[in-house]
C-alpha cells in the first residue's frame, strides 16, 4: 500500500512537471540577452532616456569600415567593390561610401539663401567686434587670390559670407570627399571610409552571421591585395563577446563534464549513479525555466546561466541519497536523511529567496528560478530515488573510507584549540581587508570584447576623430528656440575652456541651426557691414553703380530668410547632425551637445561644476550610470547575503541550539576569507564575486547540515565532498575564462568551495566522541 502510494506520488510529480513545462512552451517566451533589461526600471526622466537611446543607436546600428593601403587607386577600387557587394546584404539597410555630384552641389548651395543669418563663427566674431574693414579686405584678397575656392558672387554675396561658411564647415568626422569617395584626412596611407547601417539591432546571431561571414571573405580577398581593413561598431563587439563566451563555456564545459563523469565512475564504479545525479538537475532546471517564463513572460540569459548554477547545488540531495543508499537498506534511507534534506533545502531556498527582495528584475528572476529549481530537484530526489534505487545492493564504497582518512588529517578545533584563535584572528583580519579594500564597479567588468578588438576600435575612432562615448550634455527648455539660445550661451563658456585646453572639442546643434534670436543679430550685423563697407569695396574694384544697387536689393530680399527647423531637416548636410535634436515638443524640448572624445576625470569635474546650479543642463554619462548601477547591485547583494545568513542562523538555531556555529561558521568564514583573498589577488571585490558566494553559501550550509544530521558519517562526508568537487569542476574552472564576468565568478567559487571543504571538518565533534556514537560506520 505504502509503496503504491509512493509510486502514485512520484508519477503525479512527473506529470505535474510535464504539464508546467508544456504550458510554458506554449507561451512565446522571449530570451533576453541585453544587459540593460536586467537593470532596474530607469528612474531617469524620459528626455534623458530618449537622448541616451538616440546616442547609443548611433553607435549600435552603425558599422564603420576603413580600408587603407599603399596605392590610392587600389584602395579606391577596393572600396567600390566592397561597397557594391555590401549593398546586396539583406540585413544592411544603408551603405554610405560615396557622395555623388548632385549631393555635393546641393551641400554647397543649400545654405546660400541663408548667408545673411547663418555666419561663420570667426567672421561673426569680427563683425561683433566691429572689424568691418578687415572683412572687406578679406573679401578683396579672396577676389584676387589665385586659389580662391568657389564662385565670386560680386552682387549677391560680395563679402563671400557663404563661401567663408562652407569653406570652414566642420564635419562630424575627419573625412573629405575625394573622387566622390569618403577619404579620411590626416592619415599616413590613403584611407577610405564606408558606413554600413544595420537594419536591426546587432545582438542577434541572425544579423551578425551573414554580415560577419561577408566581411571575413572580403578581408581575405583584401589581404591578398595588401589592403588593410579596420572596423568599429557594436556588431563586432556583440559577436566577439558571444563567440568567446560560447567557445569558453563549451571548452571549459566539456572539460568539467569529463572530469565529473570520471570522478563519479571512480567513486561508484557504475554508470547508474551518474544518471541518478543528472535526473533531478534536469527536472529542476526544466521546471525552473518553465515557472520563470510563466511568471515573467521572459527569461534572461544571465538568469539561465547563474540560476542553473545555483540549481546545481541540488546535486547535494542526490549525492546524499545515493551515498547513504550504499550503506543503508532501501526502506530506511529516506527516514534517516529526510530531516537533513529538509533543513538543507529550507536554508538554501531561504537564502536564495532573499534575492527577490532586491529591486532589480535580474535578481528577482534569479530568486524565482533558483528556489523553484531547488525545490523541484529536491522533490524529485525524495519522490523518485526510493523507487529508482529499490533493488540496489548495500555495498559500502572504498572511496568513502579513503576520503574519511584524508579528513582525519584536517585538525579539528577540539584537537587544536589554537586553531579557534587562528580562524578568529584571520576572520577579523579579513573583515578589515574587506572594509578597507577596493570595490570594483567598473563597467569594464561587463566587457566581453577581446583586447585586439578594443585596440582596433580605438584606431578607427582616432582616425575619424569621433568617439563612441556615451557622455553628452543634455540641454532642456520650453521650446527648441530656447534650447538653442541656452546652447549658444553655454558655448561661450565652453569655447573659453576649450581654447585653454581644459575641455575637448564639442559639437552642438546651434552651430548648424542657430536660434532665431541669433539669426536676427547676425542679419543686423551684416546690414551694418553693408552700409559701412560696400561702397568702398566696389570703388576699389571699380564696379558700376548699378551693381551696388543690386547688391543692396538682394540684401533687402534675403536678410529675413530665417533658417527654420523644417527647412534644415530637408538639407543634405543636416544628416550627420540630426541626432543632436532630441525633442522639439512644446514644453519639453531638448538638444544634445557631444564631445570629440571621452572626457577625462578632471574635465568631467570641471564641466559638472560649470553646470552645477543649472537644472536645465544635464551631463549624461551612460558608462557612469551602469557603473553606479553595478555598485547598487553589489550593495544589495551584500546586504541580502547578510540577511540570508541571519534567517538561516535563526532557523538552524532552533534545531541545533548551541551547536549551530558548527553549521553556520564554515560558509561564513569561507566567504570572508574568499572575499579578502580576491581583494588581494584581483583589483577589488565586485558584483560577480558576491554572486559566487551565494553558491558557496548554499553548498556550505548543505555540507554543515548533512554532516551534523548524519553524525559525521563517512558516506555523508563522501557525498558532500563529491558535491563540492562537482561544483568546483562545473563553475570553478570558469576562473580560466578570459571573459571577465565568468572569470570572477569562477575564481570566487573555486576559492570559496575549497575553503568550505577545509573548514567544515574543523568544526566536527571530536573523533573519539564520534567513534563512540557510531563505531560500526567509522570503521568503514
Amino acid at each position, binding site marked *: 500500500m505504502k509503496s503504491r502510494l509512493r509510486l502514485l506520488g512520484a508519477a503525479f510529480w512527473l506529470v505535474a512537471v510535464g504539464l508546467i513545462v508544456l504550458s510554458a512552451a506554449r507561451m512565446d517566451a522571449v530570451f533576453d540577452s541585453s544587459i540593460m533589461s536586467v537593470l532596474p526600471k530607469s528612474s531617469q526622466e524620459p528626455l534623458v532616456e530618449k537622448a541616451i537611446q538616440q546616442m547609443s543607436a548611433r553607435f549600435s546600428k552603425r558599422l564603420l569600415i576603413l580600408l587603407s593601403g599603399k596605392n*590610392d587607386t587600389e584602395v579606391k577600387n577596393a572600396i567600390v567593390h566592397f561597397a557594391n557587394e555590401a549593398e546586396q546584404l539583406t540585413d544592411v539597410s544603408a551603405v554610405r561610401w560615396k*557622395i*555623388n*555630384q548632385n549631393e*555635393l*552641389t546641393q551641400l*554647397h548651395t543649400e545654405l546660400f539663401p541663408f548667408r545673411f543669418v547663418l555666419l561663420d563663427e570667426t567672421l561673426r566674431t569680427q563683425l561683433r567686434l566691429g572689424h568691418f574693414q*578687415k572683412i572687406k*579686405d*578679406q573679401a*578683396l*584678397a579672396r*577676389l*584676387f*587670390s*589665385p*586659389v*580662391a*575656392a*568657389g*564662385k*565670386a*558672387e*560680386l*552682387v549677391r554675396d560680395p563679402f563671400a559670407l557663404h563661401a567663408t561658411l562652407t*569653406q*570652414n564647415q566642420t564635419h562630424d568626422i575627419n573625412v*573629405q*570627399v*575625394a*573622387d*566622390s569617395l569618403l577619404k579620411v*584626412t*590626416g592619415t599616413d596611407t590613403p584611407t577610405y571610409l564606408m558606413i554600413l547601417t544595420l537594419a536591426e539591432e546587432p545582438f542577434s546571431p541572425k544579423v551578425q552571421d551573414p554580415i560577419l561571414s561577408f566581411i571575413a571573405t572580403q578581408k581575405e580577398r583584401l589581404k591578398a591585395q595588401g589592403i588593410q581593413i579596420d572596423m568599429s561598431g557594436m556588431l563586432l563587439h556583440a559577436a566577439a563577446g558571444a563567440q568567446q563566451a560560447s567557445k569558453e563555456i563549451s571548452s571549459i564545459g566539456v572539460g568539467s563534464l569529463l572530469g565529473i563523469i570520471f570522478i563519479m565512475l571512480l567513486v561508484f564504479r557504475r554508470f547508474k549513479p551518474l544518471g541518478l545525479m543528472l535526473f533531478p538537475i534536469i527536472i529542476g532546471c526544466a521546471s525552473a525555466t518553465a515557472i520563470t517564463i510563466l511568471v515573467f513572460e521572459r527569461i534572461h540569459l544571465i538568469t539561465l546561466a547563474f540560476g542553473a548554477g545555483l540549481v546545481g547545488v541540488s546535486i547535494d540531495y542526490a549525492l546524499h541519497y545515493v551515498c547513504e543508499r550504499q550503506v543503508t537498506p532501501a526502506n530506511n534511507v529516506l527516514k534517516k536523511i529526510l530531516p537533513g534534506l529538509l533543513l538543507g533545502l529550507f536554508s538554501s531556498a531561504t537564502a536564495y529567496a532573499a534575492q527577490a527582495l532586491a529591486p532589480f528584475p535580474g535578481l528577482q528572476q534569479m530568486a524565482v528560478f533558483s528556489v523553484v529549481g531547488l525545490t523541484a530537484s529536491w522533490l524529485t530526489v525524495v519522490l523518485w530515488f526510493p523507487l529508482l534505487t529499490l533493488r540496489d545492493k548495500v555495498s559500502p564504497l572504498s572511496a568513502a573510507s579513503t576520503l574519511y582518512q584524508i579528513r582525519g588529517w584536517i585538525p579539528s578545533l577540539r584537537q587544536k584549540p589554537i586553531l579557534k584563535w587562528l580562524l578568529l584572528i584571520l576572520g577579523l583580519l579579513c573583515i578589515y581587508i574587506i572594509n578597507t579594500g577596493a570595490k570594483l564597479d567598473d563597467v569594464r567588468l561587463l566587457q566581453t570584447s577581446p583586447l585586439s578588438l578594443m585596440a582596433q576600435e580605438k584606431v578607427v575612432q582616432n582616425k575619424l576623430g569621433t568617439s563612441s562615448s556615451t557622455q553628452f550634455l543634455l540641454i532642456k527648455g520650453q521650446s527648441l528656440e530656447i534650447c538653442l539660445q541656452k546652447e549658444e550661451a553655454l558655448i561661450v563658456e565652453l569655447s573659453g575652456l576649450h581654447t585653454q585646453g581644459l575641455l575637448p572639442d564639442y559639437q552642438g546643434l546651434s552651430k548648424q541651426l542657430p536660434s532665431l534670436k541669433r539669426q536676427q543679430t547676425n542679419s543686423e550685423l551684416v546690414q551694418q557691414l553693408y552700409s559701412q563697407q560696400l561702397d568702398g569695396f566696389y570703388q*576699389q*574694384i*571699380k*564696379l558700376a553703380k548699378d*551693381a551696388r544697387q543690386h547688391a543692396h536689393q538682394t540684401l533687402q530680399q534675403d536678410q529675413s530668410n530665417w533658417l527654420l527647423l523644417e527647412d534644415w531637416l530637408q538639407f543634405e548636410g543636416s544628416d550627420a547632425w540630426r541626432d543632436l535634436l532630441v525633442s522639439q515638443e512644446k514644453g519639453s524640448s531638448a538638444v544634445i551637445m557631444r564631445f570629440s572624445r571621452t572626457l577625462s576625470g578632471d574635465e568631467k569635474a570641471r564641466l559638472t561644476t560649470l553646470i552645477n546650479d543649472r537644472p536645465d543642463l544635464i551631463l549624461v554619462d551612460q558608462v557612469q550610470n551602469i557603473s553606479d548601477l553595478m555598485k547598487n547591485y553589489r550593495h544589495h547583494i551584500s546586504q541580502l547575503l547578510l540577511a540570508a545568513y541571519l534567517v538561516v542562523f535563526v532557523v538552524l538555531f532552533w534545531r541545533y541550539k548551541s551547536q549551530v556555529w558548527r553549521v553556520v561558521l564554515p560558509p561564513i568564514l569561507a566567504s570572508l576569507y574568499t572575499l579578502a583573498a580576491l581583494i588581494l589577488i584581483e583589483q577589488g571585490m565586485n558584483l560577480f564575486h558576491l554572486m559566487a558566494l551565494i553558491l558557496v553559501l548554499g553548498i556550505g550550509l548543505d555540507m554543515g547540515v548533512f554532516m551534523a544530521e548524519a553524525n559525521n558519517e563517512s558516506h555523508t562526508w563522501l557525498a558532500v565532498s563529491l558535491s563540492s568537487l562537482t561544483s568546483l569542476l562545473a563553475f570553478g574552472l570558469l576562473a580560466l575564462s578570459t571573459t571577465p564576468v565568468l572569470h570572477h565568478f569562477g575564481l570566487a567559487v573555486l576559492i570559496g568551495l575549497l575553503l568550505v571543504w577545509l573548514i567544515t571538518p574543523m568544526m566536527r565533534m571530536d573523533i573519539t566522541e564520534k567513534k563512540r556514537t557510531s563505531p560500526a560506520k567509522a570503521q568503514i
Partner: protein
Amino acid sequence: MNKKFLTLLLLLPLKCYADFNLQQLTDISQSPEILSGQFIQEKYLAELDINLSSSGKFEYKKNKVIQWQTLEPIENLLTMTPQSIISQQGKQTLLDLQADSNPLVSLLSELFFSVLTAQWQDLALYFTFTGSIDDGCWKIELVPKDATFTQVINRIELQGDSLLRQLTFYEINGDHTEITFIKLSQ
C-alpha cells in the same frame, strides 16, 4: 587591301594620340628648385561680364613655399606651404588656414603648387591630359576626373616651353582666371 596596311591604319590615330605623353612633357619642361618673377592676372566674371586685373610678383621654393604678392589694385601677400595658406595685408593677417582643417582650399593650393612647379605625375592623379608639343613649346589641357575638382574647375589650360608661361583656370560657373608669367628668373 592588305591586312598589314589595315592594321597600320587602325593604329595610326592611336599612335598620334600617344605622341603626347607625360614623359615627353617632363623631358621638356623644367622643374626648377627656385623660381621668381612677375605675374599678370585677369579674372573674368561671367555674371557681370567684367575683367578684374591684378598684378604682382612671386617666388617659390619647390615643395616648400610659394609667396604670391599682389601689388595692384590691392596689396596682399599670400604665403602657401603644403601645410597652410596665410593671407596678409601689411602686418595684418587676414586669413590663416591649416590644410587639415580645410580640405578644399588645401587641395586647390596643392594643385597650384603642382601646376607652378610642373609636377605632372602628381597632377595625373586628378586630371586627364590632352595637348600638343611642338618644337619645345607645349600647350596642354587638364580636365579633372575627381569630383572634388569637378565641383569647382572645368579645365585648366597651360602653355610653356622649358618653364610655364601662362595658365588659365576655367571654373564651372563660366568664370575664368588667366595668369601670365613674365621676367622669370631661376
